[in-house]
């Protein structure tokens, strides 16, 4: 493969703070193929969302960059639609109007009124929300809002669908239901998806590959795990599947042994985490100690 669909190369990001620049991400490298479902997993505060914001164009990388289909990403745009963690629907618009806002923006030159209406209805049907098209966000449940958020993103017909902990704020049953819906939709549309999550089961169930991130500051890609489970995947059948449990175990080991989260510990506690994957470049590790102390001071 000569040119990949989406490529992050050498992405660093530094945020200015009163105590000097704070390096949140260090040398992130990742290639994503068309139609691939990639999860980013890591402890909270490790910069998963920052990676996604860089791909979305909401943040600019300090060094390195993102290339999507041969073009550099330098600003946000609808070809990289985002499903936000807290749905971010406009509360003064109905479900239909929320999707319409996106559709009008993306297809105003290519679709006429009737085609747009059909397209909006089609996308609402995809997430099974046609029945509530004329309700406002405060009249529907959290799971329904997230469905609409997904419909709005899908309706933009993005090259890459970015999902920032899309089901993080939902209860376990609703989450499972939405994960199944998402797998069905994904089987139909074969989108390229990057999903942020902190839920190990969710990551293994949905992904083709899981990108595990080291703890911040100066977080980077720790390990990448390919999930070779046949689709369609069934959560009940997989529960007793040795391969599935092996993958789960791999991720859990990474998160709770190799990258054990040390809450507000002194910098000396860091070496423990230094025996992380050989994949990660050595300089990144070295930077962790000092920058880490700085960061903890600023966040304290």
């Amino acid at each position, binding site marked *: 493969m000569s040119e990949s669909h989406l490529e992050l190369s050498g992405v660093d990001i530094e945020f200015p703070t009163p105590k000097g620049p704070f390096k949140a991400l260090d040398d992130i490298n990742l290639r994503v193929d068309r139609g691939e479902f990639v999860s980013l997993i890591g402890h909270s505060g490790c910069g998963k969302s920052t990676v996604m914001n860089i791909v*979305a*164009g*909401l943040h600019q990388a300090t060094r390195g960059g993102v290339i999507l289909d041969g073009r550099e990403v330098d*600003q*946000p*745009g*609808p070809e*990289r*639609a*985002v499903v*936000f963690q*807290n749905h*971010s629907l*406009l*509360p*003064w*618009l109905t479900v239909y109007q929320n999707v319409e*806002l*996106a559709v009008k*923006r*993306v297809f105003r030159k290519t679709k006429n009124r009737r085609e747009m209406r059909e397209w909006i209805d089609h996308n609402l049907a995809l997430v099974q929300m046609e029945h509530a098209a004329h309700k*406002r966000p*405060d009249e529907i449940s959290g799971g329904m809002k997230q469905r609409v958020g997904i419909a709005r993103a899908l309706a*933009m017909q993005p090259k890459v669908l970015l999902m920032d902990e899309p089901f993080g704020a939902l209860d376990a049953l609703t989450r499972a239901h939405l994960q199944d819906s998402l797998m069905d939709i994904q089987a139909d549309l074969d989108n390229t998806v990057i999903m942020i999550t902190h839920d190990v089961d969710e990551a293994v169930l949905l992904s083709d590959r899981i990108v595990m991130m080291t703890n911040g500051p100066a977080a980077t890609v720790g390990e990448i795990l390919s999930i070779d489970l046949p689709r369609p995947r069934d959560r009940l059948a997989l529960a007793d599947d040795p391969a599935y449990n092996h993958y789960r175990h791999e991720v859990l080991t990474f998160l709770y042994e190799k990258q054990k989260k040390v809450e507000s510990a002194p910098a000396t506690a860091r070496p423990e985490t230094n025996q992380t994957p050989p994949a990660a470049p050595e300089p990144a590790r070295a930077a962790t100690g000092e920058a880490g102390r700085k960061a903890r001071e600023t966040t304290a």
Partner: protein
Amino acid sequence: MNLSLKTPGAIAPVVNLVRGENRREQVDILFRTFGLPLIGLVVFLMIWAGAAAKIETSLGQFPGPAQVWHQAEALYASHVAERDKAEAFYERQEQRIAERLADDPDYEPRIHDYPGKPTFFDQIITSLITVLSGFLIASVIAIPVGIVIGLSNKLYSAFNPIIQILKPVSPLAWLPLVTIVVSAVYVTDEPMFDKSFLVSMITVVLCSLWPTMINTAVGVNTVSSDLLNVSKVLRLGWVTHVIKIVLPSSIPMIFTGLRLSLGIAWMVLIAAEMLAQSPGLGKFVWDEFQNGSSDSLARIMVAVLAIGFIGFLLDRGMLALQRVVSWDKSAVLR
């Protein structure tokens, strides 16, 4: 209970009471919505009457509720009488012109205005027109400026100090400046507005700009960053961004500002009219004060109550408008 969902507001408990639903609860609701305010009013009137009887002034005893009510009736009666006189005046004038035209077809009639003094109710109307035009102009300036300032942190930092300094300036300080500037600048042969009207209106504008401007700017500045990200991802244009995202989310703050502004406008207007001697309720109070008859105090009290009541109605009006405009119908507005 089903019915109470459909019948509007205050009537619901009465209807439910008649239907015999939940008697105790309905009586309780009625007592709270009508009984308690009534008791408060009666207590207030009693304290007023008691205190008034003890205050002896150079113009006689301080008026109690009874005298004030009497004067209110008298003011209304004189208003009706004045209207009748005015009608009669115009009728006579028309008659005379018609007779004159019959004699001499070349006669160009000149219609004279009725020369009588404006009544209390005329003054109220004048004051309302002045305050509403001032408030309208202030809002038309303040809201767009607030939006532009609120959208940019740099502009906000640049203009905030000026606004904060001009905001607390008393109308009485502006008034002399406005009077002199208006006399110098507004020079025409056929004035469309009275100078006194312009002076009080511009003073109202100068004082009621700031709360709306500040609140709009803050409302615009604090739009949720999630919604801003949605706007960025969709690459909405500036106009769509303002109309679809910024304005709806700042509606509550804008209305808070508008209500503060209207309250200030009304207070400022009365002071401005008093000092500028422009027609309106303020002038009515001042004239009565200068007049110093035995009825004057009671008449001023009528004006005081009218000013308060109109101020209250103006605020309720803004609240009603907010209910119409606001997207969040479930929000409790008070």
